[in-house]
């Protein structure tokens, strides 16, 4: 489904953000990518969606080299990307955005289905503008609804839990679980949340632009969670930084 070959990303004069990543993601899998902030996870997701161009390496999607393909082309081939910080628009409603996502003109009832899926009362949100009057959690859920509506072979979510309250978070886990069982495609979720990692088939840990661990949740999760010495643990950098701050 998706193959990354020696994928690197370097900002001139700065550090290498991704270092020769090699990764294969099979059809129908739910993959969680985790690791400390600044480890290169979001950059990797943005490169797969075509938002950022890699400085080296190749990307293959359904057997085709898409390294040079633009964002639109990749979207049309079946790649969806949920932003960590959803973009706000003046005058574009949730209904408009779902229409754009599906490429069709849906009835209010049809479009509402996707909002209900993410736990929003469709009646209250379908005509709402995607502007700054929506809370972080509301706009995030609508963002996820647009990805559900696209129903593509590959859906990438960049920290879907960011900005979401606890009640919504519980629902979010169910959304991913249901999505995984309903669609044929693969799902990549970038997350720090243990409970999201638990629903994944496979977990990838990224630190300093490299994949340091990859495997089934049974093999990777205990190591990530049961850390005996946080000071010497590369995965715990975030937690220690937060505590110091």
């Amino acid at each position: 489904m998706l193959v990354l070959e020696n994928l690197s990303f370097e900002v001139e004069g700065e550090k290498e953000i991704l270092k020769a990543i090699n990764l294969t993601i099979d059809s129908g899998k739910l993959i969680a990518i985790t690791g400390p902030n600044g480890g290169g996870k979001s950059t990797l997701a943005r490169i797969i969606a075509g938002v950022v161009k890699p400085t080296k390496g190749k990307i293959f999607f359904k057997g085709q080299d898409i390294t040079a393909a633009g964002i639109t082309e990749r979207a049309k081939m079946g790649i969806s990307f949920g932003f960590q910080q959803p973009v706000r628009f003046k005058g574009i409603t949730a209904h408009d955005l779902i229409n754009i996502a599906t490429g069709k003109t849906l009835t209010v009832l049809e479009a509402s289905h996707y909002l209900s899926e993410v736990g929003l009362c469709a009646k209250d949100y379908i005509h709402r503008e995607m502007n700054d009057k929506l809370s972080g959690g509301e706009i995030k859920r609508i963002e996820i609804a647009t990805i559900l509506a696209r129903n593509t072979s590959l859906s990438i979510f960049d920290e879907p839990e960011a900005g979401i309250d606890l009640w919504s978070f519980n629902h979010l886990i169910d959304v991913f679980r249901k999505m995984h069982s309903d669609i044929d495609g693969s799902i990549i979720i970038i997350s720090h949340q243990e409970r999201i990692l638990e629903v994944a088939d496979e977990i990838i840990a990224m630190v300093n632009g490299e994949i340091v661990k990859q495997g089934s949740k049974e093999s990777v999760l205990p190591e990530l969670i049961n850390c005996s010495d946080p000071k010497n643990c590369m995965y715990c950098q975030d937690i220690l930084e937060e505590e110091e701050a």
Partner: protein
Amino acid sequence: MNEITKDLMKQVTGLDELPKGAYNIREDSKSVARQSSENIKIVSKEDKSGIDIIVKPNTPSEHVYIPALVSCGGITDLVYNDFYIGENADVIVIAGCGVSTGDSCDGSQHNGIHRFFLAKNSHVRYVEKHIGVGEGTGKRVIDPETVVEQEEGSFMEMETTQIKGVDSTVRVTKAILKENAKLVIKEKLMTHGEQIAVSKFEVDMDGKNSSVNLISRSVARDNSKQTFISKITGNTQCMGHSECDAIIMDHGVVSAIPQITANSVDATLIHEAAIGKIAGDQMTKLMTLGLSEKEAEEKIIDGFLS
């Protein structure tokens, strides 16, 4: 009515045929069709070109259509329309003008001077569209002036739209608000080519608890230039808000010039202005949903001006 006029009328008012109720259709400087209703009387002015629209007190929700259409080049039309809205009346005024140069190289111009006198607790929704068409090389010019005087507890909502087509426009809107009077103005504007548009608002809030909310959304493309001037004065306990939100593209230029004056410690006045190009992440987001760059740009602008 010729085909150009029919088309202009459809674009300005949304009507295919003459409406029911009160209307006055102005074509090439003359009133060509008119009808009064039981509650809304339309009469010609005696001293100058134009009409008086007199709405009876307590008129329940009723429409009145007053489009002005200029169908060929070389015409300069100047009209004075006065609206007298009776106490507790509720009307929707569908106004606006369409100018066509036809295939002439002479320009067409329509200058409409509208005055509104809203009696106590009356309610007016004023919808105005400006349309410019025609293959002719002459300039299409629309310079409207609107003066509003609102008595106690009255409400007026003005929606004005001008999307492309008009080469030059200078719009002046003045309002005086008495106690508990509310004014809402929503302006939508898109200019392109070498077009020039100036919008100037002057609102005086003289009555306690009066309020004005002025919202302008505009897009300036190519080499067009826009100027937005809002002058709001609060003379008592009142609430004034103006917002100028503009997208600039190509070599478009937008100036927002606010002037808010509080002559009372109880006046609350706010001005917000944001001018800039389309945000890159908005384009990226819509492209990740499968739109091309051009389609994404169109969607963003359509939404912004919707």
